[in-house]
């Protein structure tokens, strides 16, 4: 029982991480038809930003208490800024050329991890988390690391915030309408390009937050982290249906749980394999994803 609980909570934590990456990816693809290969790089930027701040380089930030919150906020802000810059400088001039946009993000996805490892080395760096979050607590007989709960909590907050934003605000309405039919929104005289930048900012912020909290989850940061998470985020996006935030949340939980349980109860690594094969099977059976659409 204790093992099952531990696996379930760890799976949920992993799912939360996937959701943070996949929600932005899903919105970006749904709205702009751009498969953002640089999304893993945004996650890495967030992770390194928080690590840099928490290691005492940013005045006021540190590895405990309010200082850590500031460090995470700093990492998220840097990631958001990077995402907005990416959209404005690289994606915007290539509108109407979706394949070139994908290629540009591939280039960024290669260059950013390389730059990170050029500056801070390619080895993993220990992530200085607050003492309160590095411990464990008891639940139904299992000792569960606190950081899993932090991830789940953050993902829930992001999910609720995104739902509120998409459902209750005017900008959210434009984004939702754009996902449904971009040409129609443009025809109605609404500048959908502003929504593009907005979606990139939201996606970048979520991914960077995921990176910062992922540092807590893994206990370290390394330049390749984002890229390896990206593949599983793709699985989540496809399963959840492109452009659907709720679908992404559901799929993220499913993928995280399947991966954890399969890795533990069958051979290690088989869970990862199962998830990837699941992606192929799913796409072949239902090219539109479980809830949404695929170009």
């Amino acid at each position, binding site marked *: 029982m204790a093992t099952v609980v531990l696996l379930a909570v760890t799976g949920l934590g992993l799912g939360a991480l996937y959701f943070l990456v996949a929600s932005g990816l899903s919105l970006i693809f749904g709205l702009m038809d751009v498969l953002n*290969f640089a999304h893993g790089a945004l996650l890495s930027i967030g992770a390194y930003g928080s690590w840099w701040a928490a290691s005492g380089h940013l005045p006021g930030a540190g590895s405990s208490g309010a200082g850590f919150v500031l460090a995470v906020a700093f990492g998220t802000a840097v990631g958001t800024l990077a995402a907005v810059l990416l959209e404005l400088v690289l994606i915007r001039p290539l509108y109407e050329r979706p394949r070139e946009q994908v290629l540009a993000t591939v280039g960024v996805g290669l260059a950013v991890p390389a730059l990170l490892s*050029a500056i801070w080395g390619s080895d993993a760096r220990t992530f200085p988390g607050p003492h309160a979050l590095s411990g464990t607590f008891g639940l139904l007989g299992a000792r569960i690391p606190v950081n899993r709960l932090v991830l789940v909590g953050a993902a829930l907050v992001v999910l609720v915030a995104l739902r509120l934003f998409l459902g209750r605000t005017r900008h959210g309405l434009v984004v939702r309408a754009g996902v449904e039919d971009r040409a129609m929104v443009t025809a109605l005289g609404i500048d959908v390009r502003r929504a593009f930048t907005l979606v990139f900012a939201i996606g970048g912020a979520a991914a960077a937050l995921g990176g910062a909290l992922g540092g807590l989850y893994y206990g370290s940061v390394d330049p390749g982290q984002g890229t390896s998470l990206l593949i599983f985020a793709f699985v989540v996006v496809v399963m959840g249906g492109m452009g659907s935030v709720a679908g992404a949340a559901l799929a993220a939980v499913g993928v995280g749980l399947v991966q954890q349980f399969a890795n533990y109860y069958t051979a290690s690594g088989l869970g990862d394999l199962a998830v990837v094969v699941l992606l192929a099977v799913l796409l072949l059976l239902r090219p539109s994803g479980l809830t949404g659409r695929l170009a």
Partner: protein
Amino acid sequence: MTTATPVRGPAREKAVAPAGPRRWTRWWPAVVLLVLIAVPYSALPLPGLLDGPIGSAGSLQLLALCLVFGALATGYDLLLGRTGLLSFGHALYFAAGSYLTDIFMAEFGLPFVPSVLLGLLSGTALAALLGSVSLRVSGIAFSMVTLAFAQAGSLLVERDPGGVTGGEEGRAIPADKLPASLAGIGNTANLYWIALAYLVLTLVVVHWAVRSPTGRVWEGIKENERRVEVLGLRPYGFKLTAFVLAGALAAAGGVVHLLLTGGATPQTTTSDFTLSLLVMVVLGGSGSRWGPLIGGVVYTWADQRLGDLAGSGTVAGLPSVLRVPLSQPLFLLGTLFVVVVYVLPGGVVRLPERLRTARVRTARAPAA
């Protein structure tokens, strides 16, 4: 994508009007080939470009790697630039060629030639099997399915089931199975010639395939798949042909790479490897005859040499703002790639043409 098609223009013009000395310039590939064949006999030093004289084992190894990746990119362009299929799983067939050949030799104890043939055959069969499944969907879904299959292969290799793939270490080639003429550093020249032969084979096959009736249909599929359907043709079979042909060429490349580097490494199975192929093709010029080759050669050379240069005195003396980015070839290549996507759609091969039109335009401007 329409951006890549005008590349065919100049080649056709040349074929129509071979007047005067231009007839002889058409034979430049043969001259280049002769030069490349003669390279191992030369002791010409190329300081900066190569470490040591051109005929030395180290330089030959690097040159052969460049040729292999040039050929591999040319084969990959059969999908990307000729048929318009964005596959993210090409690394799988390359890795299948090198891993399976090695496994046939080491685990099944087969001799060299049957192992190579079986490796090629099973790599091609894998491409046929997975291609027939992946091509049931199109667009981004196709890219994702190929990515998923390749990732499954990569995870499998890393998992090391039954100690067959060697996990992170990869597999070394069993030296006792190799013919004597291919073993050891002294025989690097032979390996270089094999790489060159693979390149020539790939270029000939791609050139021939693109000119064949099937190649015309590929071009049609790239431009507008629906229209091909309306003409009464089923794109599925044609796309599968392109996929299997590219997969077979990749498997052959895997075998050559196995011989050249003396082993199969898990890096060749990763999605990063396919992405680097994509970068090579786009860098050089997708859909052109020489573009992917140039892209592959430049990328491989830069990837290998820039790392060495970063360790040398000239770069180490620079201020850290310049030194840090220069020490990572992938950063430079990624940035260069983005720049090419931006300012040079159609790749490096279109650079002369663009310069010419720019010159003509500036020459006309004062007259007008």
